[in-house]
Structures are given as structure tokens and as C-alpha cells.
């Protein structure tokens, strides 16, 4: 589903990602973790082509993202759902409108839009708040609306950047449970988080970014204890 080969990314001469190589298989649930500034968000932005790599190759859903012309980017993004830490909900639109907004632009009929929105809002248990506005919702509810919006186009890949970053422990647990459910339904899920507790509890595969390099393991347990905090991991710790 996602393949990174020796990917490098730099901003104004500063290397954010160095020689990053990994694969995520279809149907997998993978965490991307690491301290703040490790390059998690940059890596996700490379997946949905909000950024282009300076070096290396990225394949997502069979599409060569790194060499893709700008005109093909919408096709790539339509195959995935994206969830942001700050939700990115439209404050002047209701829950239903936020979820269906994108479908409207993809030419989906009003009846079909409503049907699909109800389905995903039911999944995130917000089907009773269709006409509420984002400011009337709690942080957890807003994140669930964002999740519903990401799912409404039935994506094969869900990319979430710190989806629990602004939530308390209980709400974070609810959102993670939802993501797990979505994964069970067949969607590949990649979640970037700095919350080690969430990663440890899940027991899922975990890609750890440290100073722009990737270390791979099964949750935190499989990594050397110093890996996440050490300055610059040795080359031997990098895995394809």
C-alpha cells in the first residue's frame, strides 16, 4: 500500500528525513512515532503529496507519488482519507455539511451524500448530531467528525496525524478504538503519534522516526530502549 525507498526530504538545507525506507502492506495498521520534530508530519505529507521528496521514491496505492504530475494528485488523495490533529473542520458548516462537503464536489448526488454521511456518522456514533456546528461539539466529537469526513469516500488508506493529540486519555482511547474498527473493515491505517502509551497498548507495528531516520519494530517493546531518544541512530539500526 505504501512503499518508501531511500527517501530524503530537506527544508532550506536542513535534512528532515534521511534515507527513509519502509513498506506498509494493504490492510495493515501501523503507528508512526517519534519525538516532536522527528519528521512524522513531513513523512505523512509525503504520503499524500503535500510535499515532494528531494530524493528517493514513494509508491502509494500503486501510484508513483514522487514522480506524479500535479494534475494526478487529486486522484491519489481521493483514494485515501486524511485526519489532522487540528481536525480542520469548517466552523460555519454543520456536522452533516462538513462530512458531505467533499462528496458534493466529487459529483455525488444529495441523496447518496446523505446516505453515506449517515453511515459514517453512525460508525463514529455522531448520527444524532447531524445539524450541530463544530463549536457545539467536544474535542473528541470534533475529531470523530473529522474521522467521519475522512471515511465518507470509502478510502483504501487512512492517514491520521496525531488524531489524539488534543484529546484526554479517555477520548483518545475512543478514537483509537474507532481507528481499529475501521482497520478491521479492511482500510489500511497509518497513525502518526508521539503518545507512547497509545502505541504500547495497541501492540501494533510501529515505525519510529528519530532525527529523520526510521527505526522499525513491533510497538515500542521491539526497539532498543534508547532508540527513541538517542541522537542519530546508527546505520545498522535502519531496516528496509
Amino acid at each position, binding site marked *: 500500500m505504501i512503499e518508501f525507498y531511500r527517501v530524503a526530504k530537506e527544508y532550506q538545507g536542513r535534512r528532515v528525513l534521511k534515507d527513509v525506507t519502509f513498506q506498509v502492506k494493504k490492510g495493515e495498521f501501523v503507528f508512526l512515532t517519534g519525538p516532536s520534530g522527528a519528521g512524522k508530519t513531513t513523512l505523512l505529507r509525503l504520503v499524500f503529496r503535500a510535499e515532494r521528496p528531494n530524493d528517493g521514491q514513494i509508491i502509494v496505492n500503486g501510484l508513483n507519488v514522487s514522480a506524479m504530475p500535479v494534475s494526478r494528485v*487529486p486522484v*491519489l488523495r481521493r483514494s485515501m482519507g486524511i485526519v489532522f490533529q487540528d481536525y480542520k473542520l469548517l466552523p460555519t458548516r454543520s456536522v452533516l455539511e462538513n462530512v458531505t*462537503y*467533499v462528496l458534493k*464536489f*466529487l*459529483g*455525488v*448526488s444529495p441523496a447518496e451524500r446523505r446516505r453515506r454521511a449517515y453511515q459514517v456518522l453512525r460508525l463514529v456514533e455522531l448520527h444524532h448530531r447531524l445539524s450541530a456546528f463544530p463549536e457545539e461539539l467536544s474535542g473528541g466529537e470534533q475529531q470523530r467528525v473529522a474521522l467521519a469526513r475522512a471515511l465518507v469516500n470509502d478510502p483504501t488508506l487512512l492517514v491520521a496525524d496525531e488524531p489524539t493529540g488534543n484529546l484526554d486519555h479517555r477520548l483518545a482511547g475512543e478514537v483509537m478504538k474507532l481507528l481499529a474498527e475501521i482497520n478491521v473493515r479492511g482500510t489500511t491505517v497509518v497513525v502518526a503519534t508521539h503518545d507512547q502509551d497509545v502505541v504500547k497498548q495497541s501492540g501494533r507495528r510501529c515505525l519510529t522516526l528519530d532525527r529523520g531516520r526510521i527505526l522499525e519494530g513491533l510497538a515500542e517493546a521491539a526497539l532498543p530502549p534508547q532508540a527513541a531518544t538517542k541522537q542519530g541512530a546508527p546505520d545498522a539500526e535502519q531496516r528496509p
Partner: protein
Amino acid sequence: MSAAAALAALVEEAWAGLVRARRMTTASVLTIAISIFLVGVFLLVVENLRGLVETVRGETSVTVFLKPGTSADAREDLERVARDSRLVGSVRHVTPEEARTRFATWWRSLSTAAGAMATNPFPESLEFDLPPDAVRSAALPGLLKNLTAHRAVEEVQFDVEWIRRLRGAVGIVQTGGSALAVILVLGVAFTIANVVRLTILLHRDEIEILRLVGAPELLIRGPFLLGGLVQGLVGSLLALALLGGAYRALVWWSSRSQENLASLLGLRFLPAGTAALLLAGGLLAGLLGGLIAVRRRNLA
């Protein structure tokens, strides 16, 4: 997924954008309307001047004012000189009394003053009608020279010179109007561009989200482009309505006055083609403004 649903979404979003920025939209539409109204006024003046030229050209005549106390023999001799040129169609003899009556009919508000004069100030005259092609005849200057030199003639008045001057004036107004139209259309385009740009700023969250979820670029830019077009169209329709209203008011005001200038000068409104041109100008300005505003730099 259907194109009709996407198109409906595009129209819906364009409308929502205009309504959301309603103050700016109103200001923009009014600016467009005023600009296009001014262009319309120029076109209306040109149209009527041109109409006047055509009317006068079709009724070309030479008016010869006679010296006071001209005898019938001298007048008949003058008529003979004119007829010998073979350029003259018909001849009308206008007595001072007929001239006074004609003046009183044309300028009703001054009729009392004209009638109150102890002596009749209007001179006796002969009017020679010329066929339209006579204006271009090589023999015409000779005829005018002979008429001017005749002993019974006080003054010769020939319309062609006046028509030439009028045509020159029409040309100047037309050129000035065209230059003004270009400047105003560009000004309107920049007004629309700025309003659309501000609308884009108001919608930057939506644009970002639409981009991230893979909405087609055409549908992201479309509502803003359509918004510009709608502003141009509404503005030019408003300008046409204003122009029509102003024209009707002028005709109405003129009909209430004794002279009825509108009828006298044969005033007419813009022909359908010119009105359509004004609409097209508004749409063009809207399209230009929209295109300037939705450049990638502004939407990034």
C-alpha cells in the same frame, strides 16, 4: 457520481461565496454597474449622433437667405441658376411670415416672444433640396459659388459642412468612448479580481480541505470564477437597467417640455446588438477578474 451534481455544487458554492461576502459583492456589483453605465452613456451618445448624421444626410438641402426687399424677378433668376446646375431636386420659397410660424412651431417656448416682435426679424429664403448623391458631385462647389455670388443672396447655408463637422465629432466621441470602455473594463476586471481574492481568503479553509481530499482543481477554482462572472453579469444588467431608466426619464422629461427635443432629434435607445455588447463587456470583465484571482499563487 454525476457531472450535473458537481455542477450544482459549483453553482451552490459560487452563490454561497457571493452571499458570504455580500458587502464586498454589492460594492463590486455597483462599481461594475457604474463603470458599464458610463460606457453605455458614451455608446448612447455615439448612437444618437450617428443617427442624427444619417437623418440629416438623407435630407440634405441648401438654404439661401435673401437680402431684404429682393424682387420676384431676382428670386426667379436665383431659382433658374440653381435649376441649371441639375443638382437641385425641388425648391421651396419660405416667406418671412412662414419662417416665423415655423420657428414658433419648433421652439414653442419662444413663440410668444417671436410673435410679440413689432417687426418680423426672419429673412425670406429659398430652400433647394438635393438628392443624397449630390453631396459628392463635382458640380456642387460651382453651384454654391454661383449662389453666393448672386445679387439677391445675403447668405448661403449648406448642411454638408455641418454634417462633416458632426461626423468628425461622432468619430472623436466614438474613439474617446472606446478608450474609456477599455480602461473601464480593465478597471472593472481588477475590482472583480480583488473581490474574488478576498472571497478566496474567506474560503481558504474550504480550499485547503478540498485540496487535501482530492477535489478536482476545476471544482476548487470554478466557484470563484463563476462568482466573478456573476458579478460581471449582474453589474452589466444593472447598468443596462440604469441606462434604460435614464433614457426613459429623458424622453419623459422631454415630452413634457414644449419643444419635445427627444422627438425633434429622433432620440433612440441602444440597439439590441450594442446592449448585448455591454453585457458581454461585463461578462468579459468578470471572467478576467475571476481568472486573475484564481491564479495558483492566490489559491496556494
